[in-house]
């Protein structure tokens, strides 16, 4: 366990933290040099392709691969029979849980295909054309079963059952019959009935959200190479090379140390690259063929078989007094998990009312399976869905109470010392500061015209820490190589190098950060939970302090004085009692390290604790075209507590990117299935993520309420920005049209229908 609470440097002393230097991987990325998942080519490399179920739900009676295997150029064919079955066992993986029994079935269907696009077999061949031909030669005998796509229908007693052995957990007594409801969760505080009795006004609404995909531009891709003696190399695009190693070793029955995983540059993940899909298949194919195998998903495969996050039904009821004190808050959340249990229902429940200081709270959640791809984490998994409902109801409360929506939030905002319904007492958090900054922002005063509306919403996300290693290797010339174990998804090499340089007191250009493969460091949990700048940053600072300790020892030895009389300051060892001794620089000590005791390496292996929640408030102005129902975003301002912004440009980038994804979720994005359970829009043309001309500039305000549990005050920032936009946009559209919307996305047809219905009834 590690708990670094000492802040070694005060804000005024920072020389590098808070500046905006060029990122170390910038040139590689603007010149096309950077190697992503699909960019590796090895000699003798085969192409791997997956055969996927055309049915939403079907029993697999038999698979005949003989003809495919006989095709010249085909080197290996695999099915579920090539993977050992694994027992049901839940293992925490950051913000989500994994179960290997489900994971082995998700990467390759066993008894049943549970969604359109579910992998049923895979081939490796000498060319893509041959691999595709081989797929057509595989005969799968399916018994097509009735399917269920909708979360409410899936909960009904006579719904088609996905898993015959699934009995709802956390209900008393244990259900007599299996169902599609995997579990029930509940969080409560105070007395909900008494709270509602004190309310002067109650608002109760049911909301619907659709599954949305993370939409990373780089499809899943990997190259696996297993040698004849069972040693394996895997190159892949992932948010966590160590997690991929754990998962694949388990699925393939390999020893962890036999598998070396290298994380390529990653072309976006947003949570969607925290799981495995093609990686274990490529390893299994390579193990059979004894040749390297490359697998790259097509965009259709990405949509059909990876991600997304849950669609949901969200019921929210909140009561408040006339002067705007919220007296009770209740919610029931039904999240669809896709084909296997494990929706982000738990964090969804925990986040729902977290921004508020409430005495009486009750949240009940259900995790429900449907014939859709298994959901994966998506930026603040679960939070945006429940908070969309809550922030919409808070807006309506403000409207009914004739209170400014920021004012109402300020009256109820959680702050340091607030006890959250899910358990903990908050340390210093920055919601009040973001609300005050929002109220003071010029955006909030811009006059609105006809058909325009303004929406406000706040958002909360926990952030996590976890297992992290880092190393600083001192070069003989005084330059430093920083090795981190968390893939850099949006500029973290820059922020980590900045923290190392700051702590060592050297110029940033002397620190070269690299992301190590699984053989370079001890275990690292993945890039997720907004944990990298916090946890890897903490590890880097600790590694720098370790290195400084060694540097002081070397200086003491050279000067033949006591260690306690040597300080490290501004990049130099200094003899405190003897100012005449010329201070020794990092380079001086590096030059002589061979003679003073050997190589100098700063190491850290920590379990980072004390991640600080990050809160945000967003303001958005929209214009709704009454003729078409189309919503245009006119202005957007995102305000967030970053704790400490190490590289402010990349903090702003997280805020802007999260806001843009949230706008897509609010206005356009949704999975559309036909009656057969086939995805009708598995491509960027019809699954429309925001394009450049859809958006305005996204203004940002970084608030800094330092996290006392991080040496520099860092909180995670990456996930919170996707929490407020759905409610903010929906509130804005409601204000523009005078119609309260409760369903996403607010696509033109839906909005137009509501406008017309209102016109007809008026």
């Amino acid at each position, binding site marked *: 366990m590690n708990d670094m609470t000492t802040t070694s440097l005060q804000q005024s002393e920072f020389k590098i933290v808070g500046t905006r230097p060029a990122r170390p991987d910038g040139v590689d990325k603007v010149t096309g040099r950077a190697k992503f998942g699909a960019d590796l080519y090895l000699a003798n490399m085969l192409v791997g392709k997956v055969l996927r179920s055309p049915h939403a739900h079907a029993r697999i009676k038999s698979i005949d691969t003989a003809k495919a295997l006989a095709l010249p150029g085909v080197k290996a064919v695999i099915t579920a029979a090539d993977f050992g079955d694994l027992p049901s066992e839940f293992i925490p993986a950051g913000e989500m849980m994994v179960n290997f029994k489900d994971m082995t079935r998700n990467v390759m269907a066993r008894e049943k295909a549970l969604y359109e696009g579910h992998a049923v077999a895979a081939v490796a061949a000498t060319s893509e054309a041959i691999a595709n031909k081989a797929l057509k030669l595989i005969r799968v005998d399916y018994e097509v079963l009735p399917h269920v796509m909708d979360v409410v229908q899936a909960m009904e007693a006579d719904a088609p059952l996905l898993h015959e052995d699934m009995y709802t957990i956390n209900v008393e007594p244990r259900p007599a019959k299996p169902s599609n409801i995997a579990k029930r969760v509940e969080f409560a505080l105070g007395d909900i009935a008494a709270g509602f009795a004190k309310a002067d006004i109650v608002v109760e609404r049911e909301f619907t959200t659709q599954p949305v995909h993370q939409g990373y531009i*780089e499809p899943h891709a990997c190259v696996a190479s297993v040698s004849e003696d069972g040693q394996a190399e895997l190159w892949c695009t992932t948010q966590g090379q160590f997690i991929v190693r754990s998962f694949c070793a388990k699925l393939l029955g390999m020893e962890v140390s036999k598998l070396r995983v290298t994380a390529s540059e990653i072309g976006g993940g947003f949570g969607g690259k925290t799981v495995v899909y093609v990686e274990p298949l490529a390893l299994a194919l390579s193990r059979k063929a004894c040749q390297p195998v490359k697998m790259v998903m097509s965009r259709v495969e990405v949509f059909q078989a990876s991600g997304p996050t849950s669609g949901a039904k969200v019921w929210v009821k909140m009561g408040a007094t006339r002067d705007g004190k919220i007296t009770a808050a209740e919610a029931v959340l039904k999240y669809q998990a896709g084909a296997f249990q494990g929706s982000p229902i738990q964090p969804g429940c925990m986040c729902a009312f977290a921004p508020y200081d409430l005495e009486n709270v009750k949240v009940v959640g259900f995790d429900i399976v449907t014939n859709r791809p298994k959901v994966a984490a998506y930026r603040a998994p679960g939070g945006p869905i429940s908070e969309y409902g809550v922030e919409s109801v808070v807006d309506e409360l403000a409207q009914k109470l004739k209170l400014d929506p920021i004012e109402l939030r300020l009256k109820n905002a959680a702050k340091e010392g607030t006890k959250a319904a899910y358990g903990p007492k908050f340390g210093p958090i920055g919601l009040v500061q973001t609300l005050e900054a929002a109220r003071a922002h010029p955006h909030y005063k811009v006059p609105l015209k006809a058909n325009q509306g303004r929406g406000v919403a706040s958002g909360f996300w926990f952030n996590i820490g976890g297992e992290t290693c880092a190393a600083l290797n001192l070069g003989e010339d005084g330059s430093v190589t920083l090795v981190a174990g968390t893939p850099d998804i949006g500029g973290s090499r820059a922020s980590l190098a900045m923290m190392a340089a700051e702590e060592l007191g050297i110029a940033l250009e002397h620190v070269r950060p690299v992301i190590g493969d699984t053989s370079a460091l001890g275990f690292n949990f993945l890039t997720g939970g907004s944990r990298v700048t916090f946890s890897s940053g903490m590890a880097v600072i600790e590694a720098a302090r370790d290195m400084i300790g060694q540097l002081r020892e070397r200086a003491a030895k050279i000067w033949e004085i006591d260690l306690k009389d040597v300080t490290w300051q501004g990049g130099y060892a200094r003899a405190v009692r003897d100012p005449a001794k010329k201070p020794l620089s990092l380079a001086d000590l590096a030059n002589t390290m061979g003679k003073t005791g050997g190589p100098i390496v700063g190491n850290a292996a920590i379990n980072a604790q004390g991640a600080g929640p990050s809160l945000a408030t967003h303001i958005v102005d929209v214009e709704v075209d009454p003729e078409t129902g189309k919503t245009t975003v006119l202005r957007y301002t995102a305000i967030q507590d970053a704790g400490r912004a190490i590289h402010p440009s990349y903090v702003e980038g997280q805020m802007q990117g999260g806001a843009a994804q949230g706008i897509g979720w609010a206005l356009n994005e949704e999975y559309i299935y036909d009656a057969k359970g086939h995805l009708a829009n598995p491509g960027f043309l019809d699954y429309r993520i925001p394009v450049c001309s859809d958006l305005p500039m996204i203004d940002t305000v970084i608030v800094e309420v330092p996290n006392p549990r991080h040496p520099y005050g860092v909180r995670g920032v990456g996930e919170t920005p996707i929490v407020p936009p759905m409610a903010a946009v929906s509130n804005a559209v409601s204000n523009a049209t005078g119609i309260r919307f409760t369903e996403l996305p607010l696509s033109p047809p839906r909005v137009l229908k509501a406008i017309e219905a209102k016109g007809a009834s008026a």
Partner: protein
Amino acid sequence: MAKQHVSTTVNGEPVEFLCAPEQTLLDVLRDELHLTGSKEGCATGDCGACSVTLDGRLVCSCLVLGAEVGGRKIETIEGMAKGDELHPLQKKFIEHAALQCGICTPGVLIAAKSLLERNPDPSETEVRYWLAGNLCRCTGYDKIVRAVMDAAADMRSA
């Protein structure tokens, strides 16, 4: 079907390759020439990650067949910097933090360069519509648009 022999010019250099009839220009650039700076995000012309110019015209290389490019001039991201001198757009993208993961960046840069060649003084709206074919899921486009406008200003005053 037999492979075709194609002679063409890529980033000013003469290049020859063999390609199957179904291989796209993107497949050829990546799989045959190993110029992997052009990315495949969709293979259907919807994401712009594969953007290159063909005889000076901006195209999605996933929508062009390899067999079509004989005798033509192809420019890819690998040809954008001249020697050790980055193109102003490349510099401004780094300076403005206009990339996060960077997978869209080569395509966005090629598209932006092609815009500035036609319109050295684009408005924000013109930049946004020109780049509407280049998806970026990370940045929300704000810093991309700023970098393009700033590079344009620099290039005009150069």
